[in-house]
């Protein structure tokens, strides 16, 4: 082993000391000749004769100096280095070939590397918890209403805890928000109420403090690292000291480390503090409101858990603790957290692979053209005795150089693209902050580079080595690039179909009729202190004053209050029924969204009554509730009867007192731009006062109104935080951001694909025209009209592109499956998208052929025939 290493070292040293060795040899030879001469002189020859004889005995120095080098086993390596240098110089000279080749390879490699980084961070990387594979999300399921992910009731949570044999830990989560009164303005902070075992569930411990005390702790809080540093000055003595949240006092028992990632799924989002949640006799009957996570026992499977959950549901039903039609199921936590983006990421991954395939085809075309151009050179070298193996070796080296250069440039582009992409992506994308250039990206780039090298080295060698010097290219002969054009067109078509489907889907989504005019609307949330101004008697007065003050501000046209603004999660919903039918099987009843609004709300959203009247603000608290409903609600419970005003209906809420309908408004999308309007019940804020409202302001001056709002709130209720400022336009844009970004990226891929097709087709035909000048000259001289010439070229191009398009349509049937899950209002087989994709691919091929065809038509027969 040691000898082997020494030998290797000696050889390597030799290569780099080659000049030294040559001069060493020269020294030896000179000494040899001198010694030989001296010996001859000693035997009596004259100096001159002695030297002549010594030199004659030596023979051709150059010849055997080469022989000395050949003796050395380093020879093959040296040839490789020399060939590397040669190929590098050749590529530098042939920049018309090498620059586009490296650029296209880099484009394909960078697209793959960037999408691989994204996919790896969001989908592949394990969650940053202890043994994340055992973490699950648990949901109740309403079978009749087809609601897959219903939040969980404490009764069911308790049953899972006590009865499950496959779950080690069960943890409940529920969002919480509190007012933090720091040195400056009071602010809203967001966190969660969680079962005290949450940290045990995730296998993470506070970096400071002991965590929740055992049993059922109250009055304790664990805070996030950013809460600790930004609001508490990273004070280590904070542990066990009290902090005040929304007027209550909490003892800080833990600070989480900086790298702790809160569990975000269901309606759980950003969390900066955790308060303990315990199932109590009082919250036991609140209904369903918990997000639940769990940890499987080692060795337990998700399937086992799911059948166990069904069993527990059946038991609970038998014990009359659960209504009919309710079931439960679990899925892995990582699927729960990232499942919604899977289709988009998979389609992007597919698109980047297609683009890479296209890049490889195109580089192959470029290489073929390059080799043809150099075929006289090759012919000369073959005539001089260069072996096919040697020429192939050179191509292998050239391909490796191109592949490596593509990988290096592609890596640089990837490093540039990742931060851009992260900025472009919607911030609610799960695990976005962990996107970085990682080992998956490196593996993807290396694999792509190796593949490029192999394709470049093998394909042209297989075809071009038959390209013997005596054969000259013929215009009529089927060109070897033909099948590549077919391949390119088919790949580009698939990408164009994917892009046009997603773009059309996004366009549909963007132009969805919301039912109200979101422009000029600004929303913010006001939460009064529940122990003071927010008490049920004070709150209505304070909000009345606030509305009056805001209305008086210049530039504000309308002000409305609502319990939950449009498209904000967490609005309440419950079952509805014609009067008297509500007590029956509730699970089978339709569901309505319920919103508490004031009299100004409909005006702010420019909604008018289609029959009856809207709220006046004079509805009396304690009297039977009055309701404004939408048309969808009427369709759901009284499909046959047009006149609903004055009727009552069953609403499973507020002690089940049936509300009376005073007016009907048209349907409005409230929960998501994607979802069709559901039945909606509006109740009057005058009858259902609350300390928290979303305020919606219609303002001709747009967001410029925002600076005036805070003083108005402070004047009415000092110390009240206002938060979640947003224009409704931006809320809608945010909720469609994933679709927008996916459409944008796929469109980018499609445009890149079309450019590659254009370059490839143009390159192929331009090459044909350049090589076939003579034949074109003859044909023109024999009277062929230039239109015929152009026509025949275009026809050939279109036949190839057409064949590619047909293959592409067949392939896109499979490819569009990947995007099916994310399309809105567009079928994967959408005709318009396919027609658009086909026309754009064919048009690209047509234009790219037209230019060289026109050149051919302008060939001057006299000059072309005289050329050689």
């Amino acid at each position: 082993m040691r000898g082997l290493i020494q030998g290797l070292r000696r050889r390597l040293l030799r290569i780099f000391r080659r000049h030294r060795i040559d001069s060493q040899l020269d020294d030896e030879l000179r000494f040899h000749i001198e010694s030989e001469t001296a010996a001859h002189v000693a035997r009596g020859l004259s100096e001159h004769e002695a030297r002549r004889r010594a030199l004659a005995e030596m023979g051709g120095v150059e010849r055997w100096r080469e022989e000395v080098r050949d003796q050395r086993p380093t020879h093959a390596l040296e040839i490789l280095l020399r060939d590397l240098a040669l190929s590098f110089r050749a590529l530098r000279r042939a920049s018309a070939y090498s620059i586009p080749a490296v650029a296209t390879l880099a484009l394909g490699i960078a697209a793959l590397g960037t999408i691989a980084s994204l996919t790896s961070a969001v989908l592949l990387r394990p969650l940053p918890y202890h043994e994340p594979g055992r973490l699950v999300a648990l949901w109740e399921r309403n079978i009749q209403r087809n609601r897959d992910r219903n939040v969980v009731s404490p009764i069911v949570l308790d049953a899972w805890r006590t009865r499950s044999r496959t779950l080690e830990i069960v943890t409940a989560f529920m969002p919480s928000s509190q007012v933090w009164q720091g040195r400056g303005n009071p602010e809203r902070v967001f966190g969660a109420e969680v079962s005290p075992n949450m940290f045990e569930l995730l296998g993470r411990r506070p970096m400071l403090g002991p965590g929740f005390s055992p049993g059922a702790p109250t009055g304790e809080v664990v805070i996030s690292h950013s809460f600790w540093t930004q609001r508490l000055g990273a004070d280590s003595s904070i542990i066990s000291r009290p902090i005040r949240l929304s007027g209550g006092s909490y003892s800080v028992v833990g600070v989480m480390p900086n790298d702790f990632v809160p569990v975000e799924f269901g309606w759980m989002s950003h969390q900066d503090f955790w308060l303990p949640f315990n199932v109590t006799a009082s919250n036991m009957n609140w209904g369903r409101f918990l997000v639940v996570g769990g940890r499987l026992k080692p060795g337990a499977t998700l399937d086992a858990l799911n059948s166990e959950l069904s069993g527990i549901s059946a038991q609970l039903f038998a014990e009359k603790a659960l209504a009919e039609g309710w079931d439960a199921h679990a899925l892995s936590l990582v699927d729960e957290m990232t499942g919604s983006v899977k289709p988009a990421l998979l389609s992007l991954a597919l698109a980047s692979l297609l683009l890479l395939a296209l890049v490889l085809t195109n580089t192959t075309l470029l290489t073929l053209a390059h080799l043809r151009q150099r075929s006289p050179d090759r012919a000369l070298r073959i005539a001089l005795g260069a072996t096919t193996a040697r020429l192939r070796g050179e191509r292998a080296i050239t391909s490796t150089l191109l592949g490596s250069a593509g990988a290096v440039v592609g890596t640089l582009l990837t490093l540039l693209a990742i931060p851009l992409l992260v900025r472009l992506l919607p911030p609610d994308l799960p695990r976005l902050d962990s996107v970085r250039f990682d080992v998956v990206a490196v593996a993807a780039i290396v694999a792509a580079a190796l593949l490029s090298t192999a394709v470049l080295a093998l394909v042209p060698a297989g075809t071009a080595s038959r390209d013997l010097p005596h054969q000259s290219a013929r215009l009529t002969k089927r060109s070897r690039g033909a099948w590549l054009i077919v391949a390119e067109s088919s790949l580009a078509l698939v990408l164009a179909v994917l892009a046009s489907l997603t773009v059309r889907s996004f366009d549909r989504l963007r132009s969805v009729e919301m039912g109200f005019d979101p422009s000029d609307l600004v929303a913010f949330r006001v939460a009064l202190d529940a122990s003071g101004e927010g008490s049920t008697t004070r709150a209505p007065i304070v909000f009345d004053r606030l509305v009056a003050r805001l209305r008086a501000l210049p530039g504000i046209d309308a002000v409305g209050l609502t319990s939950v603004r449009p498209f904000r999660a967490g609005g309440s919903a419950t079952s509805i029924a014609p009067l008297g039918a509500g007590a029956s099987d509730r699970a089978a009843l339709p569901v309505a969204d319920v919103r508490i609004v004031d009299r100004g709300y409909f005006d702010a959203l420019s909604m008018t009554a289609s029959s009856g009247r809207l709220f006046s603000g004079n509805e009396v608290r304690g009297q039977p509730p009055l309701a404004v409903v939408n048309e969808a609600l009427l369709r759901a419970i009284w499909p046959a009867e047009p006149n609903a005003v004055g009727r009552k209906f069953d609403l499973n809420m507020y002690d089940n007192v049936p509300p009376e309908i005073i007016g009907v408004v048209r349907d409005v999308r409230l929960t998501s731009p994607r979802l069709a309007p559901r039945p909606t019940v509006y109740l009057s804020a005058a009858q259902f006062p609350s300390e928290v409202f979303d305020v919606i302001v219609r303002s001709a001056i747009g967001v410029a109104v925002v600076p005036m709002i805070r003083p108005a709130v402070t004047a009415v209720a000092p110390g009240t935080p206002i938060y979640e400022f947003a224009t409704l336009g931006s809320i809608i844009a945010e909720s469609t951001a994933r679709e927008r970004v996916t459409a944008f990226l796929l469109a980018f891929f499609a445009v890149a694909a079309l450019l590659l097709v254009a370059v490839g087709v143009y390159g192929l035909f331009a090459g044909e025209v350049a090589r076939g000048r003579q034949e074109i000259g003859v044909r023109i001289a024999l009277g062929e009209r230039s239109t015929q010439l152009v026509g025949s070229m275009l026809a050939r191009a279109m036949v190839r592109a057409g064949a590619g398009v047909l293959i592409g349509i067949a392939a896109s049937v499979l490819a569009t499956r990947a995007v099916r899950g994310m399309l809105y209002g567009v079928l994967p087989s959408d005709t318009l998208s396919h027609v658009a994709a086909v026309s754009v691919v064919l048009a690209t091929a047509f234009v790219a052929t037209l230019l060289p065809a026109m050149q051919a038509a302008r060939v001057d027969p006299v000059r072309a025939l005289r050329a050689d």
Partner: protein
Amino acid sequence: MALSKSDLLQGTLDLLILQTLQAGPLHGWGISRHIRERTREVLNVNQGSLYPALYRLEDRGVIAGSDSLSEQGRRVRVYRLTAAGRKELATEHSLWRQFAAAVELVLKPA
């Protein structure tokens, strides 16, 4: 009679060089002169064979070259046998003996 390079049996030159160096370190010309003298001018080793052979042997690690100065103050490369070279010489030596004896047996009139 002088035998030229091509008459030298393949491998014989290596053996001759190793044997020559067993006596002590020597430069290329010294080796060539030594072989010529010891064979009474029958074997005249051509430089075109000698130097490639020296470089080859050095690469295999059986001899080692180092620079030193000649009496005239000229830089010369002196070769010496390595431990591996000594082992190889012993092997080659006995192989040659066997070979020569075998050839002799064939040539001897029956």
